[in-house]
């Protein structure tokens, strides 16, 4: 009897020890490399943004590894093409996320894909950094432990756009919108419209035009706008679409007769050159701009812009800045977690906890991540002006809008929050001038 009781006691103790050991995450060994599962548009019209971002990432990772990586651990990127369709993308994503070894996913550009892959990453307990997609819905509709966004979301971009417009042209009467007919075009308009109506209820929206994504021709839209003569025209289009729209609008004089607000024009200015006149309101989807006067004193930013221009022939656009932010946030989090762990390699959960309160910098101003995984990055807005030093317009009269006034509190949905904004926000003292 005694031996049986002793046996049971020892047996229970052993089982308990085993169970505890099994559920606790073991401290991993330092890996030889961190596999980065990175996605971008390498084909299709969105590759206008995706290809430069990939070039920037390859360049940055090369330099990082050459300088020794994370005290010896190198980064090893694998690229997934977002242009191959949702099914193929998701299956490749899953495959990479389930590979053994230390890994981190940096995905995606397309808001549609981000919505789909966030639950997958959460299920597989793999950290995913949404490095570019702007849809605020991903992190607002559900709380994630392993999904983070290291750049701004649509709410910040659009609220800042409205504030800037109202600061520069407080008395306009009519507005028209020409956005691409897909998730971003529609969602960005929703936020812009609700913010505008909250801050200026008497505005009249005379036309809401949504030409298809990749439309080759905007002449009918331009004709309609010329007939309607709105004071302001908004477009959150980007890439080839924006190029075509602006060119056609400019050739027919629409850019001079209406005030254009183009939050994503940053990537098109260099290509369009003289087609864009002075006086157009442009945004930078964040605050990364190669001609930002405050970054002229930053050697890292200057060196990067020079190297990027040499390598690709063009100045960096907002997708490039977002990619670098994501990489710096990821490596910064590893460094911080290693320091907190006194040199022990962190588990995924420890890394996620570090990310959740991380403060980091891309190539512009400092950024902070908050509990729901969203980065708080301020927005830069300016007005185009001719400049002798460049064959294309440069943005001047820059204003910086800090993220705190542009974001709903954690847990509140953007759609409701923007309706509560008050006109006093336009004169908020935290908005500051950049440069002279």
């Amino acid at each position, binding site marked *: 009897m005694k031996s049986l009781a002793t046996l049971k006691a020892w047996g229970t103790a052993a089982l308990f020890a085993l169970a505890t050991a099994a559920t606790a995450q073991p401290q991993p060994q330092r890996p030889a490399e961190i596999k980065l599962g990175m996605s971008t548009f390498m084909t299709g019209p969105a590759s206008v943004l*995706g290809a430069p971002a990939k070039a920037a990432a390859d360049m940055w990772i090369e330099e990082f590894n050459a300088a020794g990586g994370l005290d010896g651990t190198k980064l090893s990127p694998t690229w997934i093409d977002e242009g191959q369709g949702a099914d193929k993308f998701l299956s490749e994503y899953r495959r990479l996320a389930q590979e053994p070894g230390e890994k981190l996913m940096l995905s995606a550009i397309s808001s549609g894909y981000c919505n789909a892959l966030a639950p997958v990453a959460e299920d597989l307990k793999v950290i995913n950094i949404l490095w570019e997609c702007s849809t605020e819905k991903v992190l607002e509709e559900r709380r994630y432990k392993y999904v983070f966004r290291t750049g701004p979301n649509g709410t910040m971009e659009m609220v800042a756009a409205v504030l800037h417009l109202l600061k520069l042209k407080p008395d306009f009467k009519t507005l028209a919108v020409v956005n691409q007919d897909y998730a971003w075009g529609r969602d960005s308009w929703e936020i812009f419209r609700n913010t505008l109506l909250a801050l200026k209820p008497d505005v009249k929206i005379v036309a809401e035009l949504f030409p298809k994504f990749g439309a*080759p*021709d905007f002449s*009918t839209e331009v004709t*309609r706008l010329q007939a309607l003569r709105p004071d302001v025209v908004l477009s959150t289009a980007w*890439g*080839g679409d924006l190029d075509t729209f602006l060119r056609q609008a400019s*050739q*027919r*004089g629409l850019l001079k007769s209406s005030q254009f607000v183009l939050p994503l024009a940053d990537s098109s200015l260099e290509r369009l050159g003289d087609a864009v006149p002075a006086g157009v309101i442009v945004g930078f989807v964040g605050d990364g701009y190669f001609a930002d006067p405050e970054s002229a004193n930053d050697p890292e930013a200057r060196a990067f812009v020079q190297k990027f221009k040499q390598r690709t022939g063009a100045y960096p656009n907002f997708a490039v800045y977002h990619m670098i932010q994501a990489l710096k946030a990821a490596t910064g989090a590893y460094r911080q977690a290693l320091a907190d762990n006194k040199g022990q390699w962190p588990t995924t959960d420890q890394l996620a906890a570090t990310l959740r309160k991380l403060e980091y910098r891309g190539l512009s101003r400092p950024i902070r991540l908050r509990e729901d995984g969203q980065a708080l990055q301020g927005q830069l807005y300016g007005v185009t002006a001719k400049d002798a030093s460049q064959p294309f317009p440069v943005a001047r009269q820059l204003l910086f809008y800090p993220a705190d006034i542009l974001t709903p509190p954690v847990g509140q949905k953007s759609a409701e929050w923007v309706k509560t904004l008050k006109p006093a926000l336009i004169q908020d003292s935290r908005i500051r001038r950049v440069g002279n």
Partner: protein
Amino acid sequence: MDLNLLLLATVDGLSYAGSLFLISLGLTLICGVFGVINVAHGSLYAFGGYSAASLLAWLLPHTSSTPVLVASLFVAAAVVGGCLGALLERSLLRHFQDRDPVLQLLVTFAVFMVLEDVQRMVWGATPVNAGDLATRLGTTELLGVTFMNYQLLFIPGVALVAYAGLQLLLRHSTAGRQIVAVIHHREVATALGINAARIGTLTFALAGALGALGGALSVPMTSFVPGLGAEMIVTSFAVIATAGLGQVTGALVAAVLIGMARSLAVYTLPELEVVMPYLMMVAVLLVRPHGLFSATAARRI
């Protein structure tokens, strides 16, 4: 909607129809002669546009004469489109012509994918365009709205000339009449002594040149990006399906119909603008399943 807006919508619709017609012309010819939808037509359009842009970029430092620059668009289209089309037919499609039509379709699809990648290798992902040429032709003011002469007059003009030229070719030249015969019935045409293989190559070269012309004439107005070819194929398919496969006059009528419908939608129901071509296609096909115009065909028992 008042008369002014209606007139503006008509003007826009007709100029859009002009470029639609040019793009669909080549596709409908191949459909008629070979009985297969050439998916690679989108690539011919893209190649035409990119080559024209490259040629213009090369010419601009040497000459500033507008007629020369405009002529270079046609030259680029004819050379690139014609050669590519003929090459495609001789090297690839000829070997599949007696096989299952689905297989032929898949072959053209494969060619399309290969050409997309070649295009991306040669010209990259950055948008390409030749906007200065369109500005040179000036603007016209109509009902208080400024229009580009290039889009208002030049493109519809070229479309009409192309239509008239093609009709002349098909009705009054030997080669043209042989093409019509082969479109109508390949076997009987061969039995009557027409060299159907040579006609096939000729048709492909002509269709290729026309498709490339559509692209070359679009590049001063649009930015060319990877993936544009795929968009074009879908839209031009809607046009030729509405028209009736192989019908040239039908393509003109269908292009005008769809162009007008789309432009009216932008003025009245902008939400429907994107689906207008396909709504028209469905509406027409419900009433006339073979398209607006179709060749009378004897029923085989």
